């Protein structure tokens, strides 16, 4: 035994992560490039937002040679921002020390939380290319920028600064990081760099980004919002979100303060009334005036048990941040030629005792995907794209649980719908429950999945207004062509079999025309009605100037529909499909529709120009739309 005890050693955090980099997103050369880029961009965006700066990022990813290992290249990743910059003495901490974070446990909706990611990227660079990260940084107060190479001292979990020098830099402030790592570059697909950059652009409307990927020409995307999102300050923890150990540690911060006072001031949602309820539920009244630091573990435990079983008001939702429908609507136009789209921002809700806000943008593009392919699903957690392990994610589970057929999209059972759509779903919460340290998948709790599902259904209902109109149009076209094609053949076939005279043939043809003409008229009437409703809606929105923002009563109408639909599904799944479809048709006039239209984007310049361009395409592309809709109908 003694021998075993002697052989036990302790390791530094850096040592642990250096051996387990796969846990934080460095499991393959492909993921290493994406994770490094992601960590650098996240840090830049967080730094800009915290200082109230509108972020302007430059990203370069290029191959500069062969990698040290057989299957990889030496890849350079450069991210430059206009953030506040860092003082020289902070550089080793930020880039070379694990768990050195200004955000750890603060309960805010920042991208980074623990202070692991960027240090892990430095470690990866060090392990694969024998050199850490080259950082150039300048704060407002500096005359010259400081440049250094930061390594991780793996044994000590400390950052080491090397080759430090001061240089001239034409920027007033900012940070530039240069990683040279072994990796492989994938641009498209779920784990692609382009997918990541597009996703980041979408949920950060205030971001201007210029990126150069491999040998391609630089791409610059301007911001569509001039407002830096204000990260809501953290609220006090809710007692129900804690475990006993955390509870005792939290109490330790309050020292001699009376236990009752500690409960009231150390937690949110604990009032005098709550204390009365706690006493009523079995907490000893004599415990409340005792100094917190005098309580025994047993007393903490018994108090904690009573707290756990006492009902309390749900935690506050003030600490969550939203992108907002208006910004999301403008931002989505930056991704390409949008045919039409709908966006939904839900009110913050409590899921699993944590405040959460779900935002959804569904868009059909003219130049992406096809009817046969699955939709492109973009998942976001605290405005960071999630690109791996899609199938285990709460967002994917929610998308698959919605019956998209009732909104006019093709979908196999329990699968993602198909079509040239991008579904962007963003979850923002100060306490997102990830499945792993690399933050690739959100844990699928029932409450969270249900909340996302409701948001998706709201967005789906908006989208379906467009699709229905298209289907009516295609239906009419199909009906007319069917009459022209099959009517005469049917009559001639019958006449041949029966051996009937020409007079009978003519009479039957007349009868057939009358019959099918009636059907056509009905289809025409359906289409006109759908068009009238759509136009009326557009006019109402244009008058109200609310093209991209929610009109409260319309939102409520749709939300009510979704609630009713969810309830109906709960009672009988099979009936829900029919009822939702018919309800959708009946209430078409009451729902809000977000339409890409000229002259409505408030911003001048490129944003407006792009909107106008899309509007032209939207109205001028009838033939294309008809074809797509006809194909879809034919397949059905």
């Amino acid at each position: 035994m003694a021998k075993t005890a002697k052989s036990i050693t302790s390791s530094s955090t850096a040592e642990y992560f250096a051996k387990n980099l796969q846990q934080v997103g460095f499991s393959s050369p492909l993921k290493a490039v994406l994770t490094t880029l992601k960590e650098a961009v996240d840090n830049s965006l967080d730094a800009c937002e915290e200082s109230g700066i509108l972020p302007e990022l430059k990203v370069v990813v290029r191959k500069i040679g062969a990698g040290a290992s057989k299957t990889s290249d030496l890849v350079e990743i450069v991210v430059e921002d206009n953030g506040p910059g860092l003082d020289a003495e902070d550089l080793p901490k930020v880039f070379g020390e694990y768990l050195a974070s200004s955000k750890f446990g603060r309960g805010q909706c920042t991208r980074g939380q623990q202070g692991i990611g960027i240090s892990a990227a430095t470690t990866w660079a060090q392990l694969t290319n024998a050199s850490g990260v080259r950082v150039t940084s300048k704060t407002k107060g500096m005359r010259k920028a400081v440049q250094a190479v930061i390594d991780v001292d793996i044994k000590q979990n400390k950052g080491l600064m090397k080759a430090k020098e001061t240089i001239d830099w034409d920027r007033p402030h900012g940070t530039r990081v240069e990683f040279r790592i072994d990796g492989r570059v994938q641009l498209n697909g779920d784990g692609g760099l382009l997918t990541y950059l597009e996703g980041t652009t979408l949920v950060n409307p205030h971001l201007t980004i210029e990126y150069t990927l491999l040998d391609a020409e630089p791409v610059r995307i301007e911001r569509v919002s001039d407002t830096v999102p204000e990260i809501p300050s953290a609220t006090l923890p809710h007692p129900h979100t804690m475990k006993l150990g955390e509870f005792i540690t939290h109490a330790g911060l309050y020292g001699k303060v009376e236990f009752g006072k500690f409960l009231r001031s150390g937690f949110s949602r604990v009032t005098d009334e709550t204390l009365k309820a706690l006493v009523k539920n079995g907490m000893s009244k004599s415990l409340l005036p005792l100094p917190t630091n005098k309580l025994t573990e047993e007393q903490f435990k018994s108090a904690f048990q009573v707290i756990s079983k006492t009902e309390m008001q749900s935690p506050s939702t003030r600490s969550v941040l939203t992108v907002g429908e208006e910004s999301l609507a403008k931002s989505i136009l930056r991704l390409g030629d949008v045919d039409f789209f709908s966006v939904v921002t839900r009110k913050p809700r409590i899921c699993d005792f944590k405040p959460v806000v779900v935002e959804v943008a569904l868009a059909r593009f003219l130049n992406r995907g096809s009817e046969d392919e699955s939709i492109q699903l973009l998942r976001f957690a605290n405005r960071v794209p999630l690109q791996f392990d899609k199938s285990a994610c709460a967002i994917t589970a929610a998308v698959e649980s919605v019956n998209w057929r009732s909104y006019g999209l093709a979908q196999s059972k329990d699968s993602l719908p198909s079509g040239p759509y991008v579904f962007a779903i963003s979850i923002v919460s100060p306490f997102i429950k990830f499945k792993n340290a690399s933050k690739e998948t959100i844990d699928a709790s029932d409450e969270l999945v249900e909340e996302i599902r409701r948001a998706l259904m709201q967005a789906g209902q908006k989208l379906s207004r467009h699709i229905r109109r298209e289907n009516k149009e295609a239906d009419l076209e199909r009906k007319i062509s069917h009459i022209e094609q099959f009517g005469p053949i049917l009559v001639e076939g019958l006449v041949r079999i029966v051996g009937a005279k020409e007079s009978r043939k003519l009479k039957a043809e007349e009868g057939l025309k009358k019959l099918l003409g009636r059907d056509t008229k009905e289809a025409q009437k359906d289409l006109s009605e759908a068009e009238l409703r759509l136009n009326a809606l557009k006019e109402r929105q244009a008058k109200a100037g609310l093209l991209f923002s929610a009109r409260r009563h319309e939102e409520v109408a749709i939300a009510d529909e979704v609630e009713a639909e969810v309830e109906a599904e709960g009672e009988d799944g099979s009936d829900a499909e029919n009822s939702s479809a018919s309800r959708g048709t009946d209430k078409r006039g009451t729902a809000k529709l977000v339409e890409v239209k000229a002259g409505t984007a408030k911003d001048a310049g490129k944003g407006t120009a792009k909107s106008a361009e899309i509007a032209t395409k939207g109205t001028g592309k009838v033939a294309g739309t008809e074809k797509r809709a006809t194909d879809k109908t034919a397949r059905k």
Partner: protein
Amino acid sequence: MEKVIRIRKLTKDIPKEVRILCDAMLEELEKGNRPVLEAIKCSLDNSFYNPKVGFLTPGDKRVRTELNVSSVQKMARVVFMLEILLANLQSGAVNTKRELYYISKGKVKKDPKLKALDFGDQDESDSIIDFVGDMLEVYREELNCFANDRGGQTYSQQLVVTETLPDGTKAVVDLSTLGTTPFQPKNKPQALALKAKKKIDFCLVVESEGTAGTLVANGMTKRHNCIVMGAQGVPSNGVRGWCKLIQEQIKVPMFFFGDLDAYTLQNIYRTLKAGSAASLIRNADFSAPEVHFLGVLPEDVKKWDLDCYKVNERDPAEARSLKKAKDTLANDPFFQDKKNRKLAEVLEWLIKNKLRCEQQAFFAVDPRDPLKTEKIILEKIQKGSYI
């Protein structure tokens, strides 16, 4: 062209029926009314099973196709196919479904006006042919449309088959003279007359054609007065009609030997014994209601310690088969009938244990004895270990 042998005594004059139907459709059109085509609904929810009848029969549900812009294509295609079939009936020509598909394509090529009717693939023309059969309530074979002969390879030292050919002459086939070659019934087994040279004790229908061949190669038909037949998976119309004929004319006990899984029970054994939901109007002549399920039974798995496979629920195909077994118990009137309670119990056993056992597992019981499987089969028949 020679006259086709009739499958049953049909009182209907099909060409006449077709003309009456088309005349009625034309008349409706002349009046500006919508013609309606009606067919028996051939699906499980319109299937009934009465053990006294012995096979699945249709209920009252019917598929109605009324002329409108959505159905005009189907109606025009039905009339198009009726014309082709009518020409075959009049000339006596026979075709397979695939050939009819190509005939229709050939007609479209010759007459560009018919282009809109062109079938994209054979499934489309098949469904129209099936609809015509269901609508006229006649067998596909009575429309001179025959499927490819598959399965039914039969071995016996006692069985003699006499076939009446279309010209009236008779061909006599003594199966004992065929050596290692099996006798295979055509899709018109009704044209055959059977005779046993010596009393035949039983007929064994084996799911796997390969295993049937092994049993015969090892001398089963030499040692025992029996008929051994390979079903080759789901029994075709020919196999089902042939089994019915053996049952009716030789009157021997018939046993089915196949895998212990939901697919075998529902798709193979039930189809052999009671027909299928898709061919409700044909089951009377294409099912063998007296056939017993010899195994593999759950009791065999235990008794002989047979190797089983665990159903892998992550595998979509296997998970589907498990789900199908549950659906079968819930919806299939054959398994719901109390006379087939024991078969339903086998399905329940499969669902509960999530296992499947193949017929070839008997070869593992005594690998040194090549006749072990034959011995087990005989023991099971003698001891009544079947359902």
